[in-house]
């Protein structure tokens, strides 16, 4: 007969405990890093290798690309149909350039089926707003800064090698030619 009272004891003990409800629309859940949410797409990185579309088990990616004047493939359209996407992560797994990734967005509910058809623009927007855009941008500026610093160091070395003093005021000036070299060398690498 006492099992019943034991149970009553358990329930009453929960009464003052901290509640676990998440006030959802106001408070969003915090997802771990690997969370597989809606995709983001970074067109600059895509090499139109078509691997993502091929691996997709539900065939929900459709893409097309053209060769530009440099014989380099450029992505033209990239659509994911979120009606059938199962967020399985296989596309991001196979992508060699990480141009398709996943964000921590999960709110896909909408009133029409059409709006679940997300194109490249939307996916890129998702990248900027919710995706790894910030991180990528930070990494980019870091890289640039690193390059500049190296160039500066090289300049300074060259300057000291020539027996001239390098003042900190010249740092800015030293950076400009360095940038120029980088871009010109980039240009030089391309077939004219």
């Amino acid at each position: 007969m006492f099992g019943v009272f034991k149970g009553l004891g358990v329930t009453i003990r929960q009464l003052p405990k901290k509640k676990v409800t998440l006030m959802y629309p106001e408070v969003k859940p915090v997802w771990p890093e690997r969370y597989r949410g809606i995709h983001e797409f970074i067109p600059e990185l895509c090499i139109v290798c078509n691997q993502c579309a091929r691996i997709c088990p539900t065939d929900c990616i459709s893409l097309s690309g053209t060769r530009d004047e440099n014989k380099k493939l450029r992505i033209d359209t990239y659509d994911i149909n979120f009606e059938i996407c199962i967020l399985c992560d296989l596309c991001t797994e196979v992508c060699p350039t990480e141009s398709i990734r996943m964000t921590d967005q999960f709110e896909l509910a909408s009133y029409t089926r059409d709006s679940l058809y997300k194109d490249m623009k939307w996916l890129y927007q998702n990248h900027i707003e919710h995706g790894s855009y910030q991180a990528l941008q930070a990494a980019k500026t870091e890289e640039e800064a690193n390059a500049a610093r190296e160039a500066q160091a090289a300049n300074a070395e060259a300057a000291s090698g020539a027996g001239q003093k390098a003042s900190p005021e010249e740092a800015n000036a030293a950076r400009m030619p360095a940038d120029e070299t980088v871009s010109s060398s980039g240009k030089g690498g391309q077939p004219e």
Partner: protein
Amino acid sequence: MLNWQSSPLTGIGFLGMVIGGVLILGLILGIVTYLIYFERKIIGWMQLRIGPNRVGPFGLMQSIADVLKLLIKEDIVPENADRSLFLLAPIIAFVPSFMVLALIPFTATHVFTSNTQVGLLLYLALSSITILGIVLGGWASNNKYSLLGGMRSAAQMVSYEIPLGMSVIGVVLLTGSLNLNTIVVAQSRHIWYIIPQIVGFIIFMIAGLAELNRTPFDLPEAESELVAGYFTEYSGFRFAFFMLTEYVYVFALCALATTLFLGGWSGPFLPSWIWFAIKTSACIFFIFWVRATMPRIRGDQLMGFAWKVLIPVALANLIVTAGVALL
């Protein structure tokens, strides 16, 4: 004590009655609304949720919103239902639930209480009318689930009415009166009847839970088996009527338990109605607490429990009480 109950009926007296009736109706509606709110809150807290919290501050308007929603919904009558009975059933179930409240002495100055000499008997009699409404509702819906629910509740409520009635006879024996006021007064003079009548109180609460169709005796509306039991086909405000009936009875039964066993409105220092409210709330809390914990009992076990356990125990209790009262 106001004496409109014993004075001859005049125009003013009649007006007072009507106003009193309407007032208490409004009051009970308010109580029931917040009963539902507190049930959801308490059970929510016990389940580590926060319960209603969106409509109004702390979700206080939630029940009101729910009731409004039910009122503006379409009133659907199934095509094959027995129309007139279908429409009548909620009313039959609902009206007695409010009528019994006229018998409960809420305060020491029972302004709104009919000081009838057969209060307890009348309570039991009126509350059994509700069963009729439920059975009719289940039958008239012409739905298999409803029918099963209606049949179950008929069997259950009829069986449990007997131990319920027997458990209160002990109190009547001790007091020598069926008048609820007298019972409270007697308790305030001597001792709460929960102490001499602890067995009676336990039986009363168990049978009461069964009468209310609440967990662990909620077979008639066993959601996981019968969808919603006898009111499966009801919608809109007719559904609201059934809901309301249920919760008014929760309140009424707890009020009756308070009156019979916990000394009613009597108590030191505080005004009588506060005492009454505290005791009733404790009973109600207990009912919600049980609901948060218990699984549902099975039909045949339910019957067996009533006939094989509750009734013999109630009878034994009765005999002992009678013996004691005789001495």
